[in-house]
């Protein structure tokens, strides 16, 4: 328990640090949304000065940071100049869509990676292992950009899948079953693209972890006792291999989130990706900070969950050295 509390505190400090770092970075940036408006001849300098005062852009940096933290504590993440909306409401909808995409992809990738990796380890050196090795190498060498592009070509050519977006225009008129079908058919390709980008890393890791577990003395003993091979694999090897696999599960959130940005932009998924890109181009800094903070929270949550899971699954982690 004390361990978990310490981890939570640590996470909190981490988030503070990240927020300070990103705030500092973006405040040092040349130009902000308001100064970008200077280029517009229809906006008078007085209006801009008034806007600077209104949004507090003329106050010193530490003051603005603490104001921001105070606001965040109240659920106010700042204001998006470009969208003319509070960042929190803007981010909420986008983050939900990104979460939906990444979680579905993570589930799909793990459902595929576990049996594929375990089988490869079990048949080490066989033709199946070899084919899978080639497959993972090829997928790993494929840039993250290419998979969504190829799937897009497939969608357009086959005409079976809708291209871009998350729902059809007539979504609100559809029945419940129709809504589900619409959502699934929109999400299918982005989810597959995202799952495929992480799949090779997961498969390799699962295979390596199972192989390491199989080489431990305890499993040699089990085999020497004549326990059936499948029994060993499921009862003992997987439990031993659980530690590195779960750790990677937490870490894989980071790569998933990063790849998701790209998949979303290419496949026009209304998640954080397209919004973040627009925010960068429009110097909409509070949106950028909001998105970065959200991704950091998600990543640390992933690691925390992995640690908690390990604590439950692997008795070795409960012993303090």
């Amino acid at each position: 328990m004390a361990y978990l509390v310490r981890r939570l505190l640590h996470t909190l400090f981490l988030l503070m640090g990240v927020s300070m770092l990103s705030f500092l970075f973006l405040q040092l940036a040349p130009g902000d949304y308001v100064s970008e408006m200077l280029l517009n001849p229809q906006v008078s300098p007085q209006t801009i000065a008034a806007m600077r005062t209104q949004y507090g852009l003329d106050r010193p940096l530490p003051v603005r940071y603490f104001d921001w933290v105070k606001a965040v504590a109240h659920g106010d993440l700042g204001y998006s100049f470009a969208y003319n909306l509070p960042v929190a409401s803007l981010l909420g909808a986008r983050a939900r869509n990104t979460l939906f995409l990444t979680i579905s992809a993570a589930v799909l990738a793990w459902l595929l990676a576990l049996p594929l990796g375990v089988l490869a380890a079990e048949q080490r050196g066989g033709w199946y292992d070899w084919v899978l090795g080639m497959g993972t190498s090829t997928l790993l060498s494929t840039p993250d950009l290419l998979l969504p592009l190829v799937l897009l070509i497939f969608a357009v050519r086959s005409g079976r899948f809708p291209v871009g977006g998350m729902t059809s225009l007539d979504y609100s008129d559809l029945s419940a079953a129709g809504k589900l079908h619409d959502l699934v058919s929109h999400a299918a390709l982005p989810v597959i693209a995202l799952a495929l980008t992480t799949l090779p890393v997961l498969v390799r890791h699962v295979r390596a972890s199972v192989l390491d577990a199989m080489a431990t003395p305890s499993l040699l003993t089990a085999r020497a006792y004549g326990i059936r091979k499948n029994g060993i694999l499921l009862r003992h090897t997987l439990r031993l291999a659980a530690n590195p696999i779960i750790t990677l599960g937490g870490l894989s959130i980071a790569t998933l989130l990063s790849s998701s940005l790209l998949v979303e932009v290419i496949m026009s998924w209304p998640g954080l990706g397209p919004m973040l890109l627009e925010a960068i181009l429009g110097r909409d800094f509070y949106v950028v900070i909001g998105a970065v903070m959200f991704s950091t929270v998600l990543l640390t949550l992933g690691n925390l969950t992995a640690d908690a899971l390990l604590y439950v699954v692997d008795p070795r982690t409960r012993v303090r050295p």
Partner: protein
Amino acid sequence: MRHIDRQLDAPYLMRHKRTIRWLVGFLLLLHLAALLAGFLAPYSPTAQNREFPYAAPTRIHFVDASGHFHLRPFVYGMEQSSGDRQIYTADSANVHSLRFLVRGEGYSLAGWWKSNLHLFGVDAPGKVFLLGTDAYGRDQFSRLWFGSQISLVTPLVATVISLGMGVTLGAMAGFWGGWVDEVIMRIAELFLAIPWLYLLFAVRAALPLSISPVGAFLLLVTLIGTVGWARPARLIRSVVLTTRQQDFVLSARAAGASSGSILRQHILPQTWGVVVTQAAILIPQYLLAEVTLSFLGIGVPEPTPSWGNMAGSVQQYSILTSYWWMLAPVMVIIPVMYVYDRLAAALHEPVKSSA
């Protein structure tokens, strides 16, 4: 146990060394080719042919319309057919021979050697586009070679920056320990707590948007390099920590060696293995970083070609589905990534099995 023993026997290590040599050889050749871009490319990367937008790859022929075989390959002239899509028909009356080592547009190699000799070209007024053209009728094959100068060099320089920072900070943290260690490692943790692409985007957001090509190159190199220092720093720190405790370091200290010389002569050489392996992992990752940023329009700006901004046009569905050759800049990344992946695996393996 068995497989570990097998990996360390002499024939295995020999084969292993040969693999590494082949992979490194391929990479050296590739970079040499990038350096010789002006020679390998038949045209300048910015030369436009407004009459041939989105021309498909030119076909090289050996047999002419009347069925005669020619030893010297040739191409047909192109004619635009009517209609709104860019479709060109070959004009079989209009034959242009393909020649090697021809004089053409001037270029400079690495900025100092001026020349106008090209590996190949066709007789004027014919055109040869081995990988088709883009919206402005620029030759994709030529642009790929010039683009490789940016797309291959950016990750190299960025990796040097990352590893330089990683080794310096990691060694400081591991060697001095105490508050230096605390501060450096806490900052590293911050960098690792943000998903990589988000971090890259966030820092990019803070930098000016429209810049000159040279400025963009320097900016990208520093951006990508600085953002990735934390992981190597952690690894270097752990190597330094374990090395610091070892007998040969202790005896060097007992013999009165100064901290600086211990660090330089005894500890840093031990980190070499980690540095090389990390380089093989970081370079392809940074290659993708440049390609991604340029693809999204926040990297190297037009008209300077990079693999990323060349591929950027396929973000429009119509271009993506109509002109497959526009995907060529993404395709060329695959073999490069594959070689780096194999190299990283080969470099990592003996270290792992002997540990």
